[in-house]
Structures are given as C-alpha cells and as structure tokens.
C-alpha cells in the first residue's frame, strides 16, 4: 500500500518535472548562449569558465567592448553596434505601451456600446467582428502598406516608417478584445448603472466611475495580452518600419540573424532582454486580475 503511494508520487513528480524541463531547458540554453563567447546558437546547458563573456550583453546595451582581431598577436579593437539593440527595445516599449492603451480605450468604449446600447445591426456587427478576427492580419499587410503610404503623403508623421503608423495598424486588430470586454460587461448587472444614473451620474460617469473600476480585471488581461503580442509582433512591424534606427525588438532581433552572419549570441541576449518588460508588465497587472471584484454589489 505504502509502496503503491510512493510509486504514484514518483510517477506524478516525474511527469511534472519533465514538463517543467520542457519549458525551462530551452530557456536556460538561450540564457547560456547569451553569455557564451563567440556566436553559437543555443545548444548547451554547460559553459566552462573560460567560455563566459559579457560581450553580447554589452553589444545589446550599446556598451563598447573589445574584440580580438588577431588571435596570434593578441591585437584587440573596441567595437560596438551602429544602432544599439537597446534602442529597438525602447522602440518596442513605446509602441506597445501606447498601442495597448489605445486598444483598451477603443475596445472598452466599443464593448460598452455593444453591451449596453441598442442600435441597428448590433448583432450583425458583433458577428462580423468575430468573422474578421479569423483572418490573420498578415493577409492585409499589402493593403496596410498602401494605406499608410497614402496617408504619409498627406500626414508624414503617420506614414510608412513612423511609430504612429505602426500603432494605427495595431489599433485595428481589436475585435477579439471587444468580444472579451463585452462578455465581461454582460456579467455586470445593469442595475449598477441604473443606480448610478439615479444618483446623478451621466452615462459617461456611470461608465467611468462604476463600470470601469469593476472591470479592472478584464482590462488588465486585455492590456497584457496586447502588450505581449505587440512586443513580439514581426510581420507588420518589419514592413512598416524599414530603417534600422526605428526597428522594434522582434524586427531588430531577426536582423541579427542575417543570412551570411548569424549573431546567435547577440540574438540570445536580446531575446532574454525582451522578456523583462513582459514580466514587469505582468507583475504590475497581476494585482488587478483578481476574482470577486464585482461580487457583493448585486445579488441575482
């Protein structure tokens, strides 16, 4: 009996450890590759002491470091990137943060209309949004390019090669967010807003002071998901942003893996770095993602 329990425990734990390993081992490989001398793809779980280096991290952060030019003479040269990948990192932060806020603003207000207002074709539009969501944004890339090009002729700050242009495109992919937020609004009793209106709140005040605070969890979720997806978004960003200076993280990182020179070490360092803002954002939003925020107000 005791043995059977033990065996069961061992089996259970092996499965758990194996699944953890499946996630952690590749991650560890990438981390190690970012500290490994030379540009090797992530492939090892062990570095001998003489293999360690901070060069890749210095490169990524834009700090000049010395590179051995001639192994025989020991001649070295101070080198650094022409455009520090840190710049790409900051670009991504800027674009993702602004676009995420924009997405919350747009999808939140749209979801409110779908959840609470009555208008013609409401049902059809909702279904339409769902259908649109099924096509990947990549399919419309050339169209976006033409549109941005055209806009750029009249408003240069919103054209190709601008962050504003990229954000504009990101803001167009919000239909799933509208659905998610609408679903959350639907669970909140309309009596809340009725009550607020009797208390003297305008429709807008009832929205901002009652409905929004109660919906913090869903907004946190939408914010995180948008933020993560935009930090790692490649196709659109690679088409819209074509200058090395204003690349985003994903585009910049990929450019390190040139056909002729694959800088795996630099790439790995940048990949690890890109996890930082996502983690921070997640920790920040986590405190809003709590259950029971709407409980206690209404009894159904």
């Amino acid at each position, binding site marked *: 009996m005791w043995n059977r329990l033990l065996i069961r425990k061992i089996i259970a734990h092996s499965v758990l450890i194996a699944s953890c390993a499946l996630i952690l081992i590749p991650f560890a490989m990438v981390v190690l590759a970012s500290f490994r001398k030379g540009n090797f793809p992530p492939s090892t779980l062990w570095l001998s002491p003489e293999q360690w280096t901070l060069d890749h991290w210095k490169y990524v952060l834009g700090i000049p470091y010395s590179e051995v030019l001639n192994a025989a003479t020991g001649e070295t040269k101070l080198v650094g990137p022409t455009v520090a990948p840190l710049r790409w990192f900051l670009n991504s932060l800027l674009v993702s943060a602004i676009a995420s806020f924009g997405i919350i603003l747009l999808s939140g207000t749209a979801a409110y209309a779908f959840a609470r207002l*009555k*208008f*013609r*074709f*409401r*049902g059809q539009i909702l279904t339409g949004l769902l259908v649109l969501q099924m096509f990947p944004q990549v399919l419309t890339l050339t169209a976006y390019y033409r549109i941005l090009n055209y806009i750029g002729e009249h408003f240069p700050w919103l054209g190709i090669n601008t962050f504003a242009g990229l954000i504009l495109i990101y803001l167009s992919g919000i239909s799933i967010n509208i659905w998610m937020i609408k679903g959350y609004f639907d669970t909140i*009793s309309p*009596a*809340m807003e*009725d*009550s*607020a*209106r*009797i*208390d*003297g*709140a305008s429709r807008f*005040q009832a929205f901002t002071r*009652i409905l929004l*605070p*109660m919906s913090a969890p869903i907004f946190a979720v939408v914010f995180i998901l948008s933020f993560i997806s935009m930090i790692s978004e490649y196709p659109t960003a690679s088409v819209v942003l074509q200058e090395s200076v204003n690349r985003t993280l994903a585009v910049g990182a990929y450019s390190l893996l040139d056909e002729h020179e694959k800088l795996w070490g630099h790439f790995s360092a940048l990949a690890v770095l890109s996890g930082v803002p996502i983690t921070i954002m997640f920790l920040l939003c986590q405190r809003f993602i709590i259950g*029971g*925020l*709407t*409980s*206690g*107000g*209404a*009894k*159904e």
Partner: protein
Amino acid sequence: MNDGAVHITDLVKTYTDDRGRPTFTAVKKINLAVENGEFMVLVGPSGCGKTTTLRMVAGLEKISSGTIAIGDRVVNDMEPKDRGIAMVFQNYALYPHMSIFNNMAFGLQLAKKKKDFIKETVTRTSKALGLDVMLERKPQALSGGQRQRVALGRAIVRNPQVFLFDEPLSNLDAKMRVQMRSEISRLHSQLGNTMIYVTHDQVEAMTMGDRICVMKDGLIMQVADPLTLYRQPENLFVAGFIGSPPMNLLKGKIARKDGGLVFTETAEQNAITVPLKGLIEPLAAKHLDKAIVFGVRPEHLTEGSENGSRVPIASTVDIAEPMGSESLVYLKAGTGNLIARIHGETLFHMGQPLTVYVNIDKVVLFDPETEAVIR
C-alpha cells in the same frame, strides 16, 4: 405641499428591438394618481408591467406615450437625478468597489455637495440604520439584510420627494424579509414621503400599502386600500390574487329550486349547491339561469351556524391542514377544492363528511365573461 404626488396619465410602454420595431407592449395606457405621502404598492404577477411602470417613473425607461408628473412638474424628459426620486433595487445594486460610506455618499458627491455636509448626512443616516460601524467596509463583507439597508440609506441621503422600491425584499431570506418589511413601513411613517413599492408578493402588498394597485398584462385591475381590495374585488383576477389561500371561485349557474334561488356548480360530480338567501337574493334573481362565478373567502366558511345569514354546504373533507390556531380544510368540490378556514379545536380527517356554513352576506358574484364583479 403637494411635491410628492405622482400622476400617471395614459402611460404606455412599448418595447422595441435593435431596429426600433415594436416587440411588445408592457404597459397599456394606465392611469394612476399617487397622493403626496402615500405608500402605493404596485402588485401583480411577473410580466404585468409593474416594474416597467416604476422604471418609467424613475426615468430609467423611456415613455412611449402618456405623461408622468411628480408634484406639478411633468417629468417625461427629465433626467432621473432631477426628478426628486430615489430607488432601491431588488439586487441592491451597491457599488462593489466602493466602501459603504462612498456608496451612500456617491449621489451627494456627484451633486458637488460640501464635504462636511456629506459626512454629516451619511453619518446620521447610517446611525439611524445601524450601519455606522461598517462604513469603511465593502459591500462584499455585509449580509443580505445589511446590504439592502445600505441601499435604503443611499436612497434616504438623497432626500427625495418620492421613494421607489423595486421588489427590495425578494432576495432576502424569509425572516429578514419580515424584519425589513416593518423597517420600511416605519421609515415611511417617520419620513412621510411618497413611496411607490413594486412587489409580486400579495402579503407585502397587503401589509405595507396605504393603497394597492393590482396589475395584470399591462393593465390596472383595481386600485384600492387593502381591506376594500380584499372585501370588494372588482374582478376575478383580484379576487384570486389577493388573499392566502385565495378566494374560492366556483363556476356554475343560478337556478330556482323549491321556491328559492340556489347556486349550483357546473360539474360531473361533487357539485356544490348553495341556497342564495338574504342580501344576495335580489342580485341573484337578476341572473337567473345565467352562468356565474360564485366567490367566497375561506374564512367565511365555518363549521357552526351561529349567525342567521349562514347557509349550509354539505361535502366531504379532501385534505386538512391543521395550523394550530386554525385549520385549512379542503372540501371536495366539482372542480378542485373549496377551502375553508376553520377553528383549530379538532382535527379533520380525509373522507370525513362535513357541513360548513357560508356567511352568505359576504359572497361575491362575478360574470364569467367579463370577469367583472356583479353588483
């Protein structure tokens, strides 16, 4: 002072779908005058339009046609906050992310009242409701009764001319419901404001209302004080809705028998026959040989025949429910049962033959076609 009077004239509410096409009419041209300081109860089964009417008074629902006036102002196009009303909802509708204090203060804050004034008002009201020790808590930490008391407090601090209640006790357990019932009644006598109270519970209606408005299918069936409603129902619906157990309503016709008039139930078996004498006789004579509904309250059927105006009905006991103080005896009748509310001195048994006596002066007759009372 006539500020709290509510006049509803030819009020209609037709709901529409997303396209604005009419779907169904919830309120069908009703007229109702609520006096200043009156406790008016709107009662009826679900879907009768009582809540819709209340929401139109509150301004939460657009009026399709007709007018609503509070005091001497027509409020049709007025915002809820400007109507001088406050409302208590069935599901409390407290703001879950705010403390109890802020829940009660929200309206005053929006009205940009002075901080001291808000603090003083909320503190005073919460003390009166026994909520002063929990002002910092969130609604989640309160029991159902306390939450509804907060909702009451939120209404009171607005100092409205008219209080609107939308089934405020339906979500409470039975004991708390009885307690809150008397609390709201006490509140009404203290404040003296007009109150319009929606419920589907006829006991709440009878115990709380100065007057009761019975509604069905978007129409008003009768408006009267509780006792009038109970004793002189205008129609079959009110007779069957008010009272627990409800009035016995037997379908049959009036015939002549042995020189006198009798009511005979139309049924295959167990048909009940009641001699019609006394005050009701001239009325019955006018409807000789016509279909009629015979209505009598359970408590007007007794075992003994103390008074002169009582006539016997012979039947057998179907079921008996002894309650201690009294017994509800279900007698076999042509269709269903004839319920008698009889003393609780002895137990009655199934199948026992029993003759009960009808207080014939209390009998009400209805026309089965128009469903209206016959006078």
